């Protein structure tokens, strides 16, 4: 076998990107539009990682995306849309999500539909919980200040160092006016930003005088970051909340697979290469510098730059070769951080229309309670979790399935390790048992009977995500965003925590945290950093 090994991939290239997930594709795009010729190696047979879809019978299911932030409409594009369209030349048919969410809390009987846009959002909460308007208005102003300052930092952080960022902030405060961008506000942004930086969401939110029931209505997006509000850093929460409520949320018309194929096609058009069924087994490192990669079929590709759309745990624990080149500091870094949730999704193709089913909203957050610690605790057991985030695709894209049918997908999270003891033999029955309970959870909350209309069902577990996306331990999120491991400390530590020359991480484990938009943005920045390293 060995003597017949030909250099199927060409032997050498400037940049190798491991994984065609959101982060890897974004990095490839950022590089390719600037003239570099990245080689993307993907172990699966299609691009996207989680940004994918699959067909069962007459249904095409979205695999993972609920809604993208930072897209925005044509006339007010968000950062992700500007990157993909204006910078990347990637054409995607974006569809707006009609409303923020419907939240149903089964213990208290709370049931509310919340629209996008700050004023309508606050109106809707005020209607359910009188007395919320004033504190919520103050709260949104606060979140907006934090979000604005974070946006400013993202600009100054092109070459981040604690010194540089502190200097920028000090200057910013001293001048009491925004020297960077007219749209940004005055120095109080930075004050608020600094003041809330070490705080958790609960620390800030629960001191604003917002009625507890209104807090329940405000909190559902917590599950998109997957860490309870008693621990989640306020900065990232504020940025996420403002982004969704201001820009709304969007999805590609042909599922997230449209986005990944569109980026992939654009990368190829620009001279990049994308190869499938090609798993990278080793990243060759010599004296702290990247030298190449070795694929599962044994081919070595020489390169001085690698962007890994993987977890640092996989990168330093098994990819870096020889193992002695994985610095102890990198391993300590990995071990100090908390892995986020692993995904569990029930995909249903139903042979009745949404109206017939009584499923008239796009996004549902169905939960026993909005006590995020309690819900988070329920993710520790191999059983029904207290919360599901459910989407009905037809309520954003009415013709996403044949007339008279409906696509629903229900997602929940498990903590890493919960599925570790599952034996192959009991796997199918277990996933069915949980799927069954989630269908009941949905039907009970809405008073519907979707159970009787199942034409197609598929269930994805942590093992499924590990299989198709090679995500570490089946995780769908990166590291948990505690204050000490939230975006700002990550930005401030980037230089110090860069352990191997020529190696960048992209995707949900990178600086910007997890989620589709964050992964795309961090992929772009990994591409830019790599380009700088190449002297481009």
């Amino acid at each position, binding site marked *: 076998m060995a003597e017949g090994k*030909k250099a199927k991939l060409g032997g050498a290239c400037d940049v190798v990107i491991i994984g065609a997930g959101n982060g890897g594709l974004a990095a490839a795009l950022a590089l390719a539009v600037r003239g570099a010729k990245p080689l993307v190696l993907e172990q699966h047979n299609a691009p996207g990682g989680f940004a994918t879809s699959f*067909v069962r019978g007459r249904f095409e299911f979205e695999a993972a995306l609920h809604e993208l932030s930072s897209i925005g409409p044509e006339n007010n594009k968000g950062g992700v849309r500007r990157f993909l369209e204006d910078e990347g030349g990637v054409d995607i048919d974006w569809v707006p999500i009609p409303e923020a969410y419907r939240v149903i809390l089964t213990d208290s009987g709370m049931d509310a539909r919340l629209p996008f846009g700050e004023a309508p959002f606050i109106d809707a909460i005020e209607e359910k919980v009188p007395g919320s308007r004033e504190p919520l208005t103050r709260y949104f102003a606060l979140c907006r200040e934090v979000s604005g300052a974070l946006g400013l930092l993202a600009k100054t952080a092109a070459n981040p160092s604690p010194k540089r960022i502190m200097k920028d902030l000090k200057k910013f405060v001293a001048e009491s006016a925004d020297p960077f961008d007219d749209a940004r*506000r005055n120095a109080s942004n930075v004050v*608020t930003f600094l003041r809330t930086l070490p705080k958790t969401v609960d620390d800030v939110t629960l001191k604003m005088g917002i009625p507890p029931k209104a807090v329940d209505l405000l909190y559902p997006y917590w599950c998109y970051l997957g860490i309870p509000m008693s621990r989640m850093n306020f900065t990232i929460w504020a940025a996420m909340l403002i982004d969704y409520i201001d820009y709304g949320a969007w999805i590609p018309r042909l599922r997230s697979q449209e986005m990944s194929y569109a980026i992939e096609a654009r990368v190829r058009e620009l001279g990049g290469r994308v190869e499938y069924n090609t798993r990278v087994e080793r990243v060759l490192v010599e004296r702290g510098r990247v030298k190449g990669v070795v694929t599962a079929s044994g081919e070595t590709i020489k390169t001085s730059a690698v962007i890994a759309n993987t977890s640092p*745990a996989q990168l330093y*624990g098994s990819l870096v070769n020889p193992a002695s080149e994985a610095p102890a500091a990198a391993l300590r870094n990995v071990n*100090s951080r908390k892995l986020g949730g692993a995904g569990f999704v029930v995909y249903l193709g139903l042979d009745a229309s949404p109206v017939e089913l009584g499923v008239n909203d796009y996004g549902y957050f169905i939960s026993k309670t909005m006590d995020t610690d309690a819900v988070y605790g329920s993710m520790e057991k191999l059983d029904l979790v207290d919360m599901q985030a459910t989407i009905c695709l037809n309520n954003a894209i009415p013709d996403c399935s044949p007339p008279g049918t409906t696509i629903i997908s229900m997602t929940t999270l498990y903590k890493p390790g919960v599925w570790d003891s*599952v034996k192959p033999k009991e796997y199918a029955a277990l996933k069915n048992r949980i799927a069954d309970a989630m269908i009941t959870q949905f039907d009970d909350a809405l008073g519907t009977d979707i159970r009787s209309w199942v034409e197609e069902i598929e269930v994805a577990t942590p093992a499924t995500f590990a*299989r198709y996306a090679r995500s570490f331990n089946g995780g769908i999120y990166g590291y948990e965003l505690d204050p000490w491991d939230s975006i700002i400390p990550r930005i401030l530590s980037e230089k110090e925590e860069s352990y191997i020359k020529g190696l960048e991480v992209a995707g949900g484990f990178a600086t910007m945290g997890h989620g589709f938009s964050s992964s795309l943005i961090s992929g772009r920045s990994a591409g830019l950093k790599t380009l700088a390293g190449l002297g481009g």
Partner: protein
Amino acid sequence: MSELIKFDGFKDMAALLELLPERKKRMKEASAEPQTGDAMAALARALHPDIQRLVITDVREEAAGARVFRLVPDKESGASSLAVFRAGQYLSLKLDISGVRVARPYSISSSPADADDGGFYEITIRKKDGGFLSEHAWKEWREGTKIEASGPAGFFCVEPLRDARHIVGLAGGSGITPFRSMIKDIAETGADVKFTLLYGVNRPEEIMFKSDLEAFAAQAPDRISVHFVCCEPDAAWCGPTGFLTADSIRKLAGDPAGKSFFICGPQAMYSFLETELKQFDLPKKRMRREVFGETADVASHPEYPPDAAGKAFSMTVHCGSETTVIPAKANESALVALERAGIAPPSECRSGECGFCASILLKGKVFVIPETDRRRLAAKKFGVFHPCSSYPVTDIEVKVPLDKS
């Protein structure tokens, strides 16, 4: 802006700077052991191995010129267990036949319990089914022959959250193989489901697994019933006769309402039954059919472009960093042309379903049989096609994926 916030520069800066020492402290105190394990990757690999190395331990003659090959883990290559499967699934067998790497799907005819604890899979191949691999298997496979297979695949399985509690299996010819697995499984596990099998054959001697099937039914008479329906009965035949029709199905399986119909058999049977079952006016979800194998005569499809029929084309193939030009025939799938030329992209279902062979059409046109076109919408938009279910109708230029191995 916010009157709540009074700026105290030093204190606020300090707050920011406090996060960094905390981060550093946590990292300093953490272990420096690499995380090499990944239980979910291990579970995924156990459930869906890229490859299973198997060896034949037994070859048994079955009726109708069929042979049952019993496959066990090939201990010599280090394999010790088989991936668990759901009754109704198939294996894609991968072989080098005179230098050509081919892959063909075969339903597993043994039950999931048979595969437990390093047990066995059985696949059943009829000689008369012809085909490249069948002929080879018939000629070459004996005890001790080593076989490479994919992990179990396919969706022709009973699903409690979707299907009715009463399943009617409609089998034709060697389409019985997945049903043998399902029925044996129901008999063994006591699953809370009723299964009525209607097995249509031309002549009595063509019934495969007759005594097995009768034994399973005897084992669980309240849940399993088996009926053989013969087209050309001999004098000794005392069962139902004729084709499987709406009438005979109603007679043998009872009122079709509230039952799920599973169909597996030759293509002619599908088309015939499709018309017959229309009379039952069943919702789509109550009819499930196994999609199997490549289309025998693509040119006869009503939507096939008539001027392409019988022609020969050239196919420019980019694979990795290599480019080759190979011949392709109008009546053969692009996958067959690739395999013939020694370029074997990964493939499993050969029915357009699984997407393993997904490739990019850079130039030219292919005919994709609409009924087996299971591509994603975005795949179509961006020129992705499945060579196993696509037929060149002009010269084409394609980019095909590398094989994993």
